[in-house]
């Protein structure tokens, strides 16, 4: 895979896109948020310092999911009234992308999934059931969250978002779904919880004393 190379319009540092479908990245040096256009990179914002974070995952962490190796190329950090969580953007070795969420060290992998007739945020309530891909999902919690920051490559521009409503749905089997209401059209992610050890993660952060 070719890795398109360009320079940061702000500081001139080299910008490498590792995933060809990435739309947005953050300059590692000056923390400018850069959005890819047809011709060049445009600085659209600046990442405020991310709060100290305790996820053991970082950009460049590698792992394995369903026999496909992946590398972490970006992330979104969300906050809600009970804390925060990370959605790590994964580039799989088959060229697709996925998300690895780390919410207080509970790990889950999800994929963006196309679905018709997704409910509007106002129509959803806890306990409601939906069926996607022959699997029944039950709404467990509706979380108003706040977008806190970004890092690395993302598949969509995500610099101007502030508040997001997430609807989490669970199943009896460890599968889950998330409805993301950050855009006008709701987006559906289907995924499953996964044990830390099963991800076979490499290049993790280290913690003092551990």
């Amino acid at each position: 895979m070719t890795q398109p190379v360009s320079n940061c319009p702000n500081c001139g540092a080299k910008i490498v896109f590792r995933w060809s479908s990435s739309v947005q990245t953050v300059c590692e040096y000056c923390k400018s948020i850069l959005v890819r256009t047809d011709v060049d990179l445009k600085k659209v914002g600046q990442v405020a310092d991310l709060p100290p974070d305790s996820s053991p995952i970082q950009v460049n962490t590698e792992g394995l999911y369903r026999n496909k190796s992946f590398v972490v190329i970006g992330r979104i950090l969300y906050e809600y009234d009970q804390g925060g969580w990370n959605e790590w953007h994964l580039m799989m070795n088959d060229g697709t992308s996925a998300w690895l969420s780390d919410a207080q060290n509970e790990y889950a992998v999800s994929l963006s999934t196309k679905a018709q007739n997704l409910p509007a945020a106002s129509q959803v309530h806890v306990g409601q059931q939906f069926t996607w891909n022959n699997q029944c999902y039950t709404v467990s919690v509706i979380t108003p969250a706040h977008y806190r920051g970004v890092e690395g490559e993302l598949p969509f521009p995500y610099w101007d978002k502030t508040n997001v409503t997430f609807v989490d749905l669970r199943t009896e089997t460890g599968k889950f779904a998330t409805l993301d209401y950050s855009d006008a059209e709701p987006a559906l992610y289907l995924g499953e919880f996964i044990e830390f050890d099963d991800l076979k993660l490499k290049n993790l952060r280290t913690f003092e004393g551990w």
Partner: protein
Amino acid sequence: MSAGTPPLSTPPKPQAKGLNCPKCGAAITLRSFGQAETVVCGSCRCILDAKDPNLAILQQFELKTSDVKPLIPLGARGKLRGTDYDVIGFQRRSAKVEGVTYAWHEYLLFNPYKGFRYLSEYNGHWNDIGMCKQLPVFDGGSANYLGEFYKHFQTSDANTDFVLGEFPWQVRVGEHAVVTDYVHPPRVLSSEKLDQEVTWSIGEYMYGKEIWEAFRLPGTPPEAEGIYENQPSAVTTNVKEIWAAFAIFAILLFALMMGFEMFARKEPVFEETYHWDRAEAKGEPSFVTDGFDLNGRPSTVQVKTSAPVDNHWIYLNYALINDDTGEAWDFGREVSYYHGYDSDGSWTEGKQEDTVIIPSVPPGHYYMRIEPEVDPSLPSTSYRIRVTRGVHPMGIYGLAFLALLIPALLISWRAYSFERSRWSESDHPPIQISSGSEDDD
């Protein structure tokens, strides 16, 4: 690239944070690398906002009892199921059930890669608890979780009495949650309902000794009192296996019995009817029978005595004598048969027949010496003697069957008692419960 590009700096390694309580100045350590929402000052009992750099005071609570002290100290590291965990938080919670207050302790454990777990302790009983990733399915009073049935044990209103250390959620003293436990020993499935949110956790019973080993604690763990809701019972788990084993052995025993019975020689060797008349029975009443041969290998000899007694008895002193060696087997047999009618109705006692089996009689030429004693009220009687070679004794099977049955019954009874004690503490005290031992047979 411009000359002014600064070198890429790696973010600092996360480390435990040392802070001071804004109220009393005591040192406060944050061990969960920024995951804590609240932290409690150990010296002045302030609940502080761990997300606030100034540690704003959220709640101050009074310590009602002075003896609340974690059995595992905060900051202790232990290995549970192969993973290292630090104890970072501690809380005491209590519930009132029928006027009695039950208090238990919860230890929050943290590993920066694996996240949070809990240990709970109640009267020396421990549980290792993690959050559920699947939803349980409900069916009447029981819950199905990952294909196993959990019976409803108890629903109670849990109050947070005391907190220490840090928590990744907003913790407050005095907070109430509805806690429901479903058990499938050694596991317990619990739901905790706070406001709108329901969280599910799954725990597995642990012994104090295991906790003491995991955290290398000094001394010995407190003795476990009574039987806990999800305490595994060796006898209960064994009951089904014991009865399965019993069934197999009983079938084998039956097959063995049938086999031996089928192949038993049952060879008649001697048969004779004798008459006894009091008028003739003068002097020496004993006599010897005609001789008979016992062939083949040493084997059993059955002596069957029958007499048409009717509310009388006769008693025969036997000696089976080997004509070649003089070896003798002495035995006495009684034939008596009584019947009558009383206030309870008609009754009978005894039979007009008696059977005895003599084991391992070697081959040879034999005869019997017989000395009859007869009921004094009986003037005369006849009696018949039949000797059979190679009869298979059945009594031994009865004994073997009892030897199998008694331990199975004892274990079932112990399991039943254990389950009774377990469920007596539940919302469903044992009236309608079955221990699973009766219906297994």
